[in-house]
């Protein structure tokens, strides 16, 4: 009888033997080419240089990850992507989004209640929901600030406070970012479990989405459940999707203890940078709507209670459900 463990061990052994055989065959092939080349054209080492150029791992007495690799070209690609588009477009995004939000606020002002507050309060968020929300929010802000420092500090802060001053900040930033990251992932996981039930997409959300411009400027009203389409979008696209993307790529970078190669970390870094910049830009919209953008929204998450009028005007279906 074959136990699963024995099967797995056999399978892994088989894979490694086959993999080793393939690698040896490829290496043998390169070596054979070099032997033939030496015979035909002595001192022509082209096959050797070709093998080196492809970043293959060769033998070395040195210990350490990828010590047998002479040249890895992907580092230059990573540098171009990081110092190029990520820094440029990421920087533009972080400048343009707050400006647009500011202009929108100047133009439309906050979403105010149409009716008068009744003074009767409804509970919108429990103690645990608020605890989790603020855990995610605080860790997110810490990660955003420290992450932004790592990417843009060299261009923005070094001219202001000098190399020594910035290195001090950056050292703290790096350590804080690496320690808070896993806490953020844990908080996001709790948030997903706790908030997913009310974020299931319903047909009514499509109507809200179709009339989003009018809804956001307060011209029309589409009833919604506990969360409207925009909030659900933030939940699925932001918290769930970007949270997963940034979380996994972050863990790969945070724990280089598992012999992951430079190629893995370069990819993880690009994914992490792009994901995080979009996440931060999008969060500004959420923060705006949750604070100065909507009258009464901040108090809801702060105290857990909203006025009945607020509940009726913003989340009519949820209000009916709570009241029934």
């Amino acid at each position: 009888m074959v136990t699963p463990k024995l099967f797995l061990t056999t399978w892994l052994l088989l894979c490694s033997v086959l993999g080793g055989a393939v690698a040896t065959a490829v290496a043998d092939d390169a070596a054979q080419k070099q032997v033939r080349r030496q015979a035909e054209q002595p001192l022509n080492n082209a096959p050797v240089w070709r093998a080196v150029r492809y970043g293959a791992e060769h033998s070395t007495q040195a210990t350490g990850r990828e010590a047998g690799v002479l040249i890895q070209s992907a580092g230059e690609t990573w540098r171009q992507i990081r110092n190029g588009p990520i820094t440029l477009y990421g920087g533009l995004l972080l400048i343009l989004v707050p400006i647009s939000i500011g202009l929108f606020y100047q133009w439309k002002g906050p979403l105010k209640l149409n009716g008068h507050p009744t003074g009767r309060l409804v509970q919108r968020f429990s103690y645990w929901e608020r605890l989790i929300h603020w855990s995610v929010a605080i860790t997110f802000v810490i990660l955003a600030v420290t992450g932004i420092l790592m990417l843009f500090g060299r261009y923005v802060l070094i001219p202001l406070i000098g190399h020594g001053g910035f290195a001090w900040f950056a050292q703290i930033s790096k350590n804080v970012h690496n320690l808070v990251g896993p806490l953020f992932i844990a908080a996001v996981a709790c948030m997903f479990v706790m908030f997913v039930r009310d974020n299931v997409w319903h047909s009514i959300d499509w109507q809200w989405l179709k009339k989003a411009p009018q809804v956001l400027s307060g011209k029309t009203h589409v009833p919604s459940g506990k969360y409207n389409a925009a909030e659900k979008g933030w939940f699925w696209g932001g918290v769930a999707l970007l949270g997963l993307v940034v979380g996994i790529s972050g863990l790969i970078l945070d724990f280089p203890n598992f012999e992951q190669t430079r190629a893995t970390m370069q990819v993880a870094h690009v994914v992490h940078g792009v994901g995080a910049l979009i996440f931060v830009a999008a969060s500004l919209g959420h923060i705006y709507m949750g604070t100065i953008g909507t009258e009464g929204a901040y108090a809801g998450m702060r105290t857990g209670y909203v006025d009945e009028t607020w509940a009726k005007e913003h989340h009519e279906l949820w209000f009916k459900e709570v009241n029934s």
Partner: protein
Amino acid sequence: MARMKFLCDAERCIECNACVTACKNEHEVPWGINRRRVVTINDGQVGAEKSMSVACMHCSDAPCMAVCPVDCFYKTEDGVVLHDKDLCIGCGYCFYACPFGAPQFPASNASAPGGQATDWFGARGKMDKCTFCAGGPEENGSEAEFSKYGRNRLSEGKLPLCAEMCSTKALLGGDGDVLADIYRERVTVRGKGAEVWGWGTAYGKPGQQSDTATSDK
């Protein structure tokens, strides 16, 4: 002004690892940190085996320098790429970017030159790499400089020890023009094999170099 470069001649390197040992000993580099290493291609394949000694190549357009978030790298008048460990935060970006695998990160305080590492799980200490035996930003020959960066031979008018004591003179270190002349002489006598490993990556295409040696293929 000299432009310092390393050159390794694949026809001469015999994988004796003396350059590695000389480096470790001269700078009292702790265990686990490889400022220089020897890599053998087609190891044990008769007629195809080639060895190469590699360390920081002190690139013209150094990728480490470009990606460092705290801008801790600087270039000396001789073209040597050095870094300031007091600024380094151990993020590892230079290690992602470097083509030659030069940046090293001590895993613990005990194995960090100058005792500058963090002992937390997974945290990288201050980066350490080949200095072309040119020390660091501290005063030349000072104790502080030695404990963090190793010996400053260049300030004493000496060249890197790895190259100085290479018995087959496969590894050369010094002014790029002089190295190129020596190598050209060798190639002329051999009649073939003008590739200089790593020069294209480190110092740009032949047209951009201040010498006539050809780049690797």
